[in-house]
């Protein structure tokens, strides 16, 4: 039993990532309302960002900011890996940009069809 427990505890952050990916992907595919799909899309993207950050995490290391010129010599093991943080600044900005464009398109769909429910829109399209 403790083998399983230690197994789960050793990588718990990755289970959170997998759970959030499943939630986000399910919402994007199965939700009927377009705004809910956009929320699912954003959850899916932040889950991948969490995955990258948990790659860079180091036990017993401090935040990736040194102490300036006169500080103690810099050792690689003392600081958290800064590279995933840089990559994820880009991913957050990309997720906001995609959110903005998706909401703009959702407003255009609402202006065109008067509703954001997927099934109502398809019934209107079939009537045309």
């Amino acid at each position, binding site marked *: 039993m403790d083998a399983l427990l230690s197994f789960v505890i050793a990588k718990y952050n990755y289970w959170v990532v997998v759970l959030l990916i499943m939630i986000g992907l399910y919402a994007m595919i199965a939700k009927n309302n377009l705004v809910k799909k956009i929320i699912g899309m954003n959850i899916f993207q932040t889950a991948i960002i969490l995955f990258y950050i948990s790659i860079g995490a180091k036990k017993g290391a401090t935040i990736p900011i040194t102490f300036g010129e006169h500080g103690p010599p810099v050792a690689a093991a003392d600081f958290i890996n800064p590279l995933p943080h840089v990559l994820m600044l880009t991913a957050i900005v990309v997720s906001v940009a995609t959110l903005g464009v998706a909401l703009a398109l959702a407003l*255009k769909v609402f202006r065109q069809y008067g509703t954001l429910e997927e099934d109502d829109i398809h019934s209107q399209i079939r009537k045309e």
Partner: protein
Amino acid sequence: MTEHFPALIVVGPLLAGLLIAAAGWFNRKACFPMAGLTLLWVLWMCIGLTLRVVTSGSIDYHLGGWAPPWGIAYRVDFLNGIVLVVVALVAFLNLLASWNSVEREMADKAGAFYSLYVLFTTGLLGMVVTADAFNLYVLLEIASLTAYALLGMGDGRSALSGLHYVFMGTIGASFYLLGVGYIYLVTGTLNMADIAARLPALYSNGTVLLAFILCMTGLFIKMALLPLHMWLPNAYANAPSLSASLIAPLTTKVMLYVMIRIGLNLFSPSFTFEISGLAPAMVWVAVIAIVAGSVMALFQKRLKRMLAYIVVAEVGYMVGGFWLGNRAAVTGAILHIVNDAMMTLCVFLAAALIVHRLRTDNFSDLKGLFRKMPFTMAAFVVGGLSIIGVPPLCGFFSKWYLISGGIIAGHYGFVAALLLSSLINAVLFFRIIEIGYFEPLPGSDGHHHEPPAKMDEAPLGMLVPLWAAAGLLLVLGVYSGDIATRIIQFAIPEAIL
């Protein structure tokens, strides 16, 4: 200045896109010439780069002056040299044709349209040239965001199909990002050459296989391989016709180039074709994509939807050709990227001109089009024949390489699918030619005869690029022999025999 070309190809159009967006607020007339000059300059740089690659081998460029594993590096070699030229050429030709329809449909947002147009080209050119896995994701996002905006701008259903394209595109890009994250987890680096050096020791690791599957799935969603193609027909059919004729030829082809780059250079050919064990399954998926794409194109009532399904079938050609794994098939796949981009441009541009003049593209309204728009229909026939694969035009030669690759690999299902799809293409195009040839039937009451429709052709500004594209199909057909021998032959690593 020439040694800065790899960076200038991407930074030049980026700066131009920004200046065009700003110029849009002062005088709208200046936007089109600025965009035209930028793309012409980019085309000239791409040709210069490809010639330099052919003469003196591949070129490396370190961004920010840092060596590859630490900084971002750009690399132009045989594989992406030819794709660069095609992307720049298609973007330039399509831009020439876009002036009239932009002036009519979205005159007051012309600055934004041309800026998005040039930024889309920047994203694609950057994706083709980059040698850094994460930089490719960022450029993929620029190309996707501009594509969402350009495709979502039409009237009617385009907003909804644009939104579906946003969801599928984000899932695809995020899968690719997750795949790169897995690679980074086990190798610790992002530069493609560095990854390729460190991966062989880890092939037994399950994470590497899952990274490969995730990257490939993300790219299959972005290139609309059959089971994941739902978004493409609606997105391209309902879009403004000039946006569709820009995005249809380019997005799927650059995604295929990225698949080949990852399959050959990131993961070695031995991993892609033997260790991963996906190759046979992928060829059968491609066979289904070819057959189903072509058959679905038969049932379409609108011209642009039919062409969109033909694009889905063409993606099946190239995926099948690549995953067969022998030299002839991979050469065919790469040559087909070049040829299919030009063919799709020619056919979509002709459809754009038809929609520009008739404002509709239902088959029933295309009657008597040969008399009304002879030049457009002539170019459409040339594009159609090339897609079917008639010898002097370029479509035949790449299909020939694919079929010979299929025969060498002994995969007769793939060869049969290619032949069946060519047959169905023939049926599709001759049906339209037949509709276009006969005069509109006299009205239901049967006795009033309107005079044979006088010729009201699309404006000259749209016809010249269309005829240039049709002419290029012939030029590519004639030179496809030495394109394959002098350029593509060096692009494929020796491991593939």
